[in-house]
Each structure stands twice: as C-alpha cells, then as structure tokens.
C-alpha cells in the first residue's frame, strides 16, 4: 500500500507534513510529497487517512 501526493493538485497548504511528518515531507516551496517511495504499513494506514482528510485540495490518495 502506498500513499501518493498529486503534485499538480498540491498547492502547499502543508497540513499533511505538519500533522503526519513521518509520512510526508515539505520542499523548498512548501509543497508536499510522500517520504521515500510512499510505501506504508497497515499500522500507518490511520495516519495516512488523517492526512487525506486534512488536505484541502484532496490531493492525497492511497494506492493498493
């Protein structure tokens, strides 16, 4: 299971990397991307869903 940030949709609100820094990181522009290859464990799924719900742009999704 991977968490994916749609770079075209992200406008840098920064909620995901503030709330769930273990899964997301900010760049020089304050935009977000998934850490590493975005692979998450089942235990991290709730955290990923927290970020998905918090994203004002609906830019984050889970890919099986």
């Amino acid at each position, binding site marked *: 299971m991977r968490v994916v940030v749609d770079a075209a949709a992200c406008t840098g*609100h920064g909620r995901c990397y503030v709330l769930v820094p273990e899964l997301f990181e*900010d760049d*020089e522009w*304050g935009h977000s991307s998934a850490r590493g290859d975005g692979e998450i464990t089942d235990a991290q799924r709730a955290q990923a869903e927290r970020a998905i*719900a*918090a994203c*004002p742009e609906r830019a984050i999704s889970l890919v099986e």
Partner: protein
Amino acid sequence: MSTDAEQQAPVGFFEGAPLTFDRAEGWRYFREPGEVYQRDGIWFLTSPAAVRFAHQHPEIFSSAKAFDNLGSPVPLIPLAVDPPDHVRYRRLLDPMLAPRVIGAIEPELRRQVREIIGAFVHRGSCEVMADLANLYPTQVFLTLFGLPLDDRDMFIDWVRTIVEAPGSTASDGATPEAAAAGAALFGYMQGFIVAKRAHPGEDVLSTILALSGDDAWSDEEVLGLCFLFTLAGLDTVTASIGFVLAQLAGDAELRRRVVDDPELVGPVIEEVLRLEMPAPFTPRVVLSDVDVCGVSIPAGSFVFLVLGSANRDDRDNADDIDLAQADRGHLSFGGGIHRCLGSHLARRELRIVVEELHAMIPEYTMAEGFVPRIHWPSGTLHLTALPITFPVADPVTDPMGDPVGDPVTGRA
C-alpha cells in the same frame, strides 16, 4: 435630504446578514438560499462543492478584476493575477514564505510577542485587539520586509483606513479616504524600494529586488506585492488573534485544557480558523458562462465564494468547536492556485501568540459583562474589542526580567 434617503434605503441582502453577534446564524443566512444563487447583482457560492469548483477553475473564476475596489494603485500581486502569469510569481514567492523559512525567524517573532505582552502583564487587564492583536502582525510584516518597527503605528492606520472603507465589500470603487491612505502607503514603500535597491538587506523585500534576468521584478510588481502583504496579511492575522483569544477567554475549561496540553494549541487554532473567518468572502469575476452545482452563472458576473458558510457545511454539529475533528480542515486559506501565500506565517503567528501568552498569563477571562461583536459590514471581519482580565504576574518571576510593579504592594 440625503441623510433621510440613506436612512430609508433598504438594507441589501449582503449588508443585512446577521453576523455581528453570532456567526453561526450569519453563515446559515448565507447558506439557506442555496449552494449557488444571486442577490442584488452578486452571486453567492456557499457550499464546499461550489467553493471547491471555483478554486479548481481559476481560468473561469478570474481574480484579476475582482480586487479593483481596494485602494491599491497597482495590481495586487500575485492575488489579482490569473494563469499563466500567476505561476511565475508563486514559484518565486512560495519559498520565501515556506515553513522552513518562517522557522528560521521564529525566535525573533517570539521575542517580539513577549515584549508586547510584557507591556501589559502587570496591569491585570488589557484590550487584546488594541494592546496585542493590532500590533503584532504589522511588526512581523515590518520584520520580514526589513522596515523600521518605529513605523508600526503609521502602517496600522493606513491599513485600517483601506480595509475598513465602506466600499471595500462592494464593487463600487475605493473611497477618497482609502485612496489617500493607499497613496501614502504607496509613497512609503516606493521610498524603501529605492533605498533597498541601493543597499540590500537580508529581508524578503531585498531578496525580491535582487532577482535578476527573466526573474527580475519591476517596481510596480514589487509595490503590488507590498500592497497584497499589507492588505491581506495584517488585518486578517489581527482578526484571527482576536478570535482565538476570545474563544479561550470565553471558555475557561477549553483554556485550561490548552494550557495543560500544548499539543492542543494547533487544533484550537484550526477550529477557530474554521469557525471565525477574517476574510470569509472571496471575490471573483466569471469570465465565461459556467454551471456550478446545476446553476448557470453568466459571463461577467461578480461572485463571492462564501468560505464562512462552506466551512460549516461538512459535518454534524458544525457550529461547535471540536478539537477531535480539527484535522478535517477548512477552506479559510482558500484553495487552488491562490491558496493563501501567508498561511504558514499566519498559523505560526497564531501559535506563537497563544504559546507565549499562556507562558506569561495562563489564566485570563473575558471582562465581566462584555459581549463580543464584530465590525460589520466590512471587507474583513474582526472583533471590535476584546477586554480581558487576569491575575497580576509576580514581578519577581516576570519573564521579561524587568519588574515594573509598585515596590510596596508588588502590584502594577
């Protein structure tokens, strides 16, 4: 007689909104007629779906013509710029206001707020808007832009005059007072642009002026950015400081929870941002006929995205503060390409104010009998005043290390 005519003039739909004392009632008033509707020549988009649609389609919902009524003699950059030019500005500006940059100046921002609080910590009472909320965001702006902090009060007067002008919520042009204040601000900034081109500092203004080649900015572009920062970034943060502290001062149990658990500072700020919006109406001009939630809006229409209503339309008990739901977010910083450029700075300022206030004054309450109200109608919504009272700090443990209390009683 003109005064009679004014008194008898029917109050318009917009101005008639019952927002002064109760935003729950006020935002319901805007939501009830529908998701998308027209009143008095203005279109209102009030649901999360309608607002998001406008955010996602800046090529239809133009920002470029939507801010002409403010007292700015230059286009507000990058807010009043449409694609494709818009991306050029944000590519350069976003890094200057990214979280990591703000983190670097946080110690100085904390020092300044402690100094402001230190001026009233021994008084036992203060008026939050005048003594704290009006002062701090302007100081932060002056600090970021490398301008003298001594100019703070002059700046505050200009901005207040511009944003509180009666015409600033409608599309009927700037008032003479707002235009005069706009001209004064323009001249002031122009002087510093010349000075900083000659002698650059380490500030945001110098950084922009130092851009060269294809990235170089004209003086007019720099002035447009300065106007945006002052018109969008000062009064809004002032208002939010007032709203956050009003919530805490009016709810002793909530305040104690937040003082005891600093992890709750962020959730409280997010929930107050959702419920109490300084800039709840985003103006746009529709460039081509468009269908939104099944309603046709013709080209040329003036539109308000009613963020205040949309924020209360996505959950049960949406009018109540719910710290457990704070992660679910809100539209208070807008969305799409015009996402508030200063959102990271605003959130940091709010967090710093609450944390430093609680370190120095953990117990405070709204002055007895005071009924908070907002200035309405207005372009930005803020409390007219917020008097609070608190136990007087012991001068010996004063974090400013500068006892000013009466030597006999120990009271300020």
